[in-house]
């Protein structure tokens, strides 16, 4: 055998190396390992699979309670199917359900209030501490210094009302909504039958932006299009509703009431129409001053247009004049609600009725309660309560008054000095001031009238109703009124309504509020009007916690961390403001900023349209520190009938 010399060895070795290199390349190994490298560096998440099924559920985002179908993959809910009958707010409920910032254990405040610094505690510990606090207040004879604020009427709010009232406090409140405002102004919640209506005249009610029952209005809206129902929107900004309406009647901001009075005047004087409701005489005497011409001067709407609207309203078979300015957040003076509702009674509309909520009966208040209930008067609304009353304890059920009320700052100051319990799934601006935050479950986790929960409740959270029950059971003397084991026993008992009556035109209110309004509109120091608008899905702020809301927002609302306010081009020219300029908005109360200017003629002159729902200080990592909250600087004049600040029009200037 030939000896392998050095040269041959090099040849063989070289060949082997070259061969294996070629072989490796052609085997595809380098490419596969590159693919692995790609995957490894990217750390791709693979959603786990499982048995697919669709579960029937009820969306409890709003009182409308749409029935929905939830697509399940194993135990995971992955999609809400609304089959063309839901609303965008319901579509975000999965983001609520699986929100990474959800609280899963009761939290106790540590450190100074308003910083949202909490430590987890057990349920027993929290309930024991809260109830002993309540017992202490009762013992010291300050029963009426316990108050509650609910986001909206539902099972848990009725339970909380019952608890607070049974202790002897009248101070159980709701955040201002369409229902609370109309109930305050006209004596009952307004129930519109939009499906029967053949002429809709909306006075700043942004029907398609979360107003009332979003889902059913959307349905009615598509039927209006099919039935060729005329839908006219009176508003100072071409909002989404105004854009979808058949006609947008642009007006000077805040002057909706004058349009209504002008129409009423025309109907009464020219058509000889009238209403049988109380105090109509006094009211129509004041309305008599607002001929269409006079109204035109105040509103900027041509007198002819006002007459046309009046004629159309009287001609229609079942016309509806819609009161309650705003979308998710509503603000109207009671005079305005009365005036618009009054139009319905003048034209004898069959499509608007009133109703009222009825709490479930059978409460047995504690012995000392009767005295307090008789002595301390309930305020007309929560804003009035914050402004005029002091309290030792506030139970917050899902609400966010620190953020949503014009009196947020005043409330925060009072919360710092009192004992605050917040029951909610996400820590919000109000919960930041809480001594205890109790985690509640969301709509898919609760049993409803429609059946079992869609998904298992997240560990550690319980139904808000259960939380109230657990507290109430520990309060001395209340056990008898709260004998239920769980909220599920109450599903059939709650949510009852009944007809309401007793509408009065209240001429004196009209007189006073018109005087105030005229004075405000004539304020030369603050020459512009701030008109809040609402961005889709964000609504009045609750939606911003759900990051998919941001997928909808365009550059006209919120872009690169800056909130955009819309200003009429002529007005901007007059004030020397150019597009994209940074601004501060100033009112008598203070200033917010900076925001950016978006010049567009889709807003009335002398108007600054500011998106609401931004500027949270604490409301999950997705909503915090985004934009500004205009409610900090809005009009805080409290309406005597609704007890709520009429903030929808605020006089401002820019800098």
């Amino acid at each position, binding site marked *: 055998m030939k000896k392998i010399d050095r040269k041959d060895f090099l040849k063989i070795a070289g060949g082997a190396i070259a061969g294996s290199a070629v072989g490796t390349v052609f085997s595809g190994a380098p490419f596969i390992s590159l693919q692995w490298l790609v995957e490894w560096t990217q750390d791709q998440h693979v*959603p786990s699979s499982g048995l697919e099924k669709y579960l029937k559920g009820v969306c409890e985002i709003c009182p409308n309670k749409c029935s929905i179908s939830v697509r399940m993959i194993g135990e995971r809910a992955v999609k809400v199917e609304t089959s063309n*009958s*839901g609303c965008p707010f319901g*579509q975000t409920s999965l983001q609520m359900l699986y929100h990474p910032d959800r609280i899963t254990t009761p939290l106790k405040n540590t450190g100074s209030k308003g910083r949202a610094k909490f430590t987890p505690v057990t349920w027993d510990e929290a309930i024991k501490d809260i109830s002993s606090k309540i017992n202490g207040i009762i013992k010291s004879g300050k029963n009426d210094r316990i108050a509650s604020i609910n986001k909206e009427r539902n099972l848990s709010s009725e339970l909380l009302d019952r608890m607070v009232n049974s202790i002897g406090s009248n101070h159980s409140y709701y955040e201002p909504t369409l229902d609370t405002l109309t109930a305050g102004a006209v004596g009952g919640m307004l129930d519109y039958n939009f499906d029967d209506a053949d002429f809709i005249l909306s006075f700043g009610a942004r029907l398609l932006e979360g107003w009332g029952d979003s889902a059913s209005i959307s349905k009615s809206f*598509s039927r209006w299009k099919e039935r060729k129902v005329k839908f006219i929107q009176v508003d100072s900004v071409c909002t989404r509703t105004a854009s979808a309406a058949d006609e947008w009647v642009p007006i000077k901001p805040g002057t909706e009431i004058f349009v209504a009075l002008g129409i009423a005047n025309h109907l009464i004087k020219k058509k000889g129409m009238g209403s049988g409701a109380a105090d109509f005489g006094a009211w129509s005497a004041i309305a008599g001053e607002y001929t269409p011409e006079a109204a035109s001067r105040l509103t900027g709407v041509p007198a002819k247009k006002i007459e046309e609207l009046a004629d159309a309203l009287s001609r229609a078979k079942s016309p509806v004049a819609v009161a309650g300015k705003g979308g998710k957040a509503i603000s109207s003076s009671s005079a305005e609600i009365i005036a618009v509702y009054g139009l319905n009674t003048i034209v004898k509309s069959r499509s608007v009725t009133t109703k009222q909520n009825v709490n479930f009966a059978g409460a047995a208040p504690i012995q000392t309660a009767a005295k307090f209930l008789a002595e301390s008067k309930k305020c007309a609304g929560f804003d009035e309560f914050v402004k005029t009353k002091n309290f030792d304890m506030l139970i917050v059920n899902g609400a966010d008054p620190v953020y949503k009320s014009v009196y947020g700052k005043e409330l925060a100051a009072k919360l710092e000095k009192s004992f605050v319990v917040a029951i909610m799934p996400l820590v919000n601006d109000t919960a930041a001031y809480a001594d205890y935050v109790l985690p509640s479950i969301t709509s898919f986790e609760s049993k409803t009238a429609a059946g079992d929960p869609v998904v298992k409740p997240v560990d550690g959270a319980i139904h808000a109703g259960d939380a109230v029950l657990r507290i109430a059971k520990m309060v001395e003397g209340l056990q008898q009124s709260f004998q239920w084991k769980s909220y599920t026993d109450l599903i059939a008992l709650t949510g009852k309504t009944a007809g309401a009556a007793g509408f009065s035109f209240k001429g004196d209110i009209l007189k006073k509020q018109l005087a105030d309004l005229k004075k405000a509109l004539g304020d030369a120091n603050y020459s512009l009007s701030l008109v809040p608008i609402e961005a889709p899905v964000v609504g009045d702020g609750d939606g911003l916690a759900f990051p998919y809301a941001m997928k909808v927002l365009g550059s006209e609302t919120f872009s690169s961390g800056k909130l955009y306010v819309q200003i009429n081009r002529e007005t901007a020219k007059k004030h020397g403001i150019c597009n994209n300029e940074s601004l501060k908005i100033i009112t008598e109360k203070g200033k917010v900023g900076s925001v950016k200017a978006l010049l567009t003629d889709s807003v009335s002159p002398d108007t600054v349209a500011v998106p609401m729902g931004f500027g949270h200080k604490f409301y999950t990592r997705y909503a915090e520190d985004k934009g500004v909250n205009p409610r900090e600087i809005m009009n805080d004049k409290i309406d005597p009938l609704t007890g709520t600040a009429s903030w929808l029009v605020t006089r401002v200037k820019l800098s």
Partner: protein
Amino acid sequence: MMKDMENKMKRRWGMAIDLDKCTGCGECAVSCAQENNLPIFEDDSDIPKKMTYLDVMRITNDRDAKFPDVKVAFIPKMCQQCEGNDPKNPQPPCVSVCPVVATDTGDDGVVSQIWSRCIGCRYCQVSCPYEARVFNWWKPKYEGSFKKSLNPDVSIASRGTIQKCTFCSHIWKKERDKAVMKGELDINAVLYTPACVSACPTGAMVFGDLNDPKSEVSRLARDNRAFRLVHTIDQKKPDEQKKFRAIKNFPNPKVYYLSSKQWIRDLMRFK
């Protein structure tokens, strides 16, 4: 032979959106994001870099009008599923340009995209006249428990890849699989509804088969209120159209918009 005939694709998916009914509520976009596992960022307000398939565009005619004659409308815009001049041989602007065959037109006319094939050159994004393709500028994020609501039918894309609307064709595939389980082998047997269409609360969006003359979408596409987004060649006379199409392809989207408002049609033209 018979079987082949039966299994020939007949579908040509298209959409019609009635802008008179659209309220700009954004439910379509949220539903789309949920269905297609779109990433979740803490601050998603960098709009030009935002990952979203469906953009609800707010348009006003303040280019042509002044207060108080200004109007506003909302246009939900997703991938328009262009097909070029010849529907039988679809040539969307974006498909032929991809260097790595990451995007293709299916025989049902839907322009697909394979996230895991895409190298992220963004050439297709450049070619798209509707800004419908979006790029993962950052690594897609799904914070903690948000991962629980991810749809297993849509894979998660990597950073640096293009994603786009596919008319939710994974839903169709799922429906077809279900039909096959029941013994139905005809590929045309099932219809489906994309997430945005099934969410629309006013029923403004209609989805269906453009090849089926009886389907609602093809009826709406022929409606005299119908137009296509920034596709003004549709308004030219037939002989002029023919002349133009001989020179170059036109996108010919399969998404039709309907509006009774003249100003929206006027706004489709550049001035």
